[in-house]
């Protein structure tokens, strides 16, 4: 009975399903609202598939152990929210420079600090990009429905493994806690990417081989004895003070993502073909926006929606192109204006760009968006 497979799942539960589908076999984290259901689900499911779960003593330990698990060869994940995301930032930088595949789920709640634990927010968008110090690559995906949390979590693992870098799954509390019907895909239905394994002789192995943008990563204990450090390092993994090597490596870890961003980008367009005004938004706010677009279209108003499923690297090309053919781009977001600055940067003055912000712990409603959009019609 095909219907039997359809289940009503919470967003955070779909994240667990996605992680397992992608082959995640290691989870470490620390309880925090509103992401805790991810940890709870992983604690039940991982041991059934031979995977490991550990609740660490704090948020930092939660991501540190996950990096260790990944280096030992298991696809690894941690999940957190707001304050925990802040605490994890140094380790995110470590995973960037040491090039360790890792998925970090951030279920966004109101901030700053403890803020509003049970209230939705989209205020970690810049923290995802700039939260850790130094220059570093960032990939972040932004699902807006329960089924999409599953598929985007799978994609996050694929990107992490492919580019040997931490990938963030960012969604707001509304999407994380709402329930929608979902049919879990059969094995083989979605692409699953595994990190490239080392095949050379151990003595010829370089964990950061200069000949690759992304070098194969051998798991610890597989006969390839190598060194991993958070210091600037040479291709053999050992620390260096050589300015040329430092420069090359710092640029390479960013280039490996930047040069391939057309493959990392993923946008959904709704009614944009003839649109005079576009809405640019993510997550639960994109659902309000789609509702608004449908309503306005019923009155013949030419409004469309550009919804990035990859927010980092920022969809520069799509926004730039859009800015040339609309009068305005309205950017609703559950913060005081983060994505809007990126949209402005990409629009280069080609059209009006306006933020629609909300930080009272309530969602941006379709009515608010319709009101904001009407100004430009």
């Amino acid at each position, binding site marked *: 009975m095909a219907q039997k497979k359809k289940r009503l799942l919470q967003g955070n539960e779909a994240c667990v399903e996605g992680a397992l589908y992608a082959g995640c076999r290691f989870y470490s984290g620390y309880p925090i609202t509103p992401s805790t259901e991810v940890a709870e689900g992983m604690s039940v499911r991982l*041991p059934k598939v031979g995977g*490991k779960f550990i609740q*660490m003593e704090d948020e930092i330990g939660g991501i540190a152990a996950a990096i260790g*698990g990944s280096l030992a060869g298991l696809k690894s994940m941690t999940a957190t929210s707001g304050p925990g995301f802040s605490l994890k930032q140094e*380790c995110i930088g*470590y995973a960037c420079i040491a090039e360790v595949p890792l998925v970090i789920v951030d279920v966004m709640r109101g901030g700053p600090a403890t803020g509003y634990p049970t209230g939705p927010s989209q205020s970690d968008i810049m923290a995802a990009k700039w939260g850790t110090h130094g220059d570093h690559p960032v990939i972040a995906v932004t699902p807006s429905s329960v089924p999409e949390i599953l598929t985007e979590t799978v994609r996050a693992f694929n990107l992490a493994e492919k580019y040997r870098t931490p990938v963030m799954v960012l969604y707001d509390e509304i999407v994380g806690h709402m329930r929608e019907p979902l049919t879990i895909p059969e094995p083989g239905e979605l692409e699953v990417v595994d990190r490239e394994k080392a095949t050379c002789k151990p003595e010829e192995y370089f964990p950061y081989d200069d000949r690759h943008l992304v070098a194969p990563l051998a*798991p*610890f204990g597989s006969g390839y004895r190598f060194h991993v450090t958070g210091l600037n390092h040479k291709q053999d993994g050992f620390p260096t003070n050589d300015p040329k090597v430092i420069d090359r490596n710092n640029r390479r870890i960013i280039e490996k993502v930047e040069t391939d961003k057309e493959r990392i980008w993923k946008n959904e367009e709704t009614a944009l073909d003839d649109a005079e005004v576009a809405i640019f938004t993510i997550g639960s706010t994109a659902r309000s926006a789609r509702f608004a677009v449908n309503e306005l279209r019923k009155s013949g108003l030419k409004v469309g929606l550009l919804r990035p499923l990859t927010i980092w690297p920022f969809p520069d090309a799509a926004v730039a192109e859009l800015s040339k053919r609309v009068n305005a781009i309205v950017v609703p977001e559950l913060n005081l204006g983060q994505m809007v600055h990126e949209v402005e940067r990409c629009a280069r003055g080609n059209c009006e760009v306006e933020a629609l912000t909300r930080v009272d712990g309530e969602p941006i409603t379709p009515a608010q968006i319709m009101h904001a959009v009407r100004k430009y019609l």
Partner: protein
Amino acid sequence: MSTIAEKKEKVSVPFDYNKYLRPNKLPHIWCPGCGHGIVLKALLRAIDRAGLEKDNICMVSGIGCSSRTPGYVDFNTLHTLHGRAMAFATGVKLAKPELKVIVITGDGDALAIGGNHFIHACRRNIDMTVLVMTNSTYGMTGGQYSPTTPLDAIATTSRYGNIEPPFDACEMARASGATFVARGTAYHTIELERTIHDALVHKGTSIVDVIDACPTYFGRANKYKSATHMMELIEKDGTVNVKQAEKLPPEKLEGKVLRGVLHKVERPEYCEQYENLIMQKAAAKK
């Protein structure tokens, strides 16, 4: 007591440290007079005695002078962030329990910024051997006071004398649930090798506090005449083996720090518990 044959063997076959080192990564960064190299040599001899395979050892460290150790040894090596060595190590060990995980950390790394990971690794009794290289200072940043700096001692951040009472890493480890707790010094190198060996073969969290004074910062700031002078006063005269201590009157023990195995109990190990209890129960439950 070793037999004549053993003694003969020790004399005739010098230990081949290069077997475990990455010679092209030397010289190390440590100062003349620093004991970290002595501790490393004791560790390598202990690893050899324990019969551990290089491929199966994962050495994890944090940040600090002692945490540079993994760079010099030919194992799977992981130099992590300040304070986080035991958390990273927990992930490695749980993901791949067949690896022998050895953590090299300093007193600031393990007991200050990493204090939480230290006590919780001990509580879990996850199988790893942790060498806390206690030099009572932050050497890499130039000699600030650390969580084991004695009262009144001078450091670049306690110019008027330290007012914070020091931690005892062994007491902390024991109270937190570590099942093997020991102390050694760089001075007592043969004893240290034996102690580390016993820690390595112990199943569970084994903590070895290695007193390893810093001549460059702690020594100079506190008016020790030389590295050897400091080593004699702190490591030799300042400590007594726990077995010898049993025979000494209390007045002879005053102000002395105990060396040797201070605590050893058997308790289920974390990774084994995970596999034996959690994974089996999970598999049985639909």
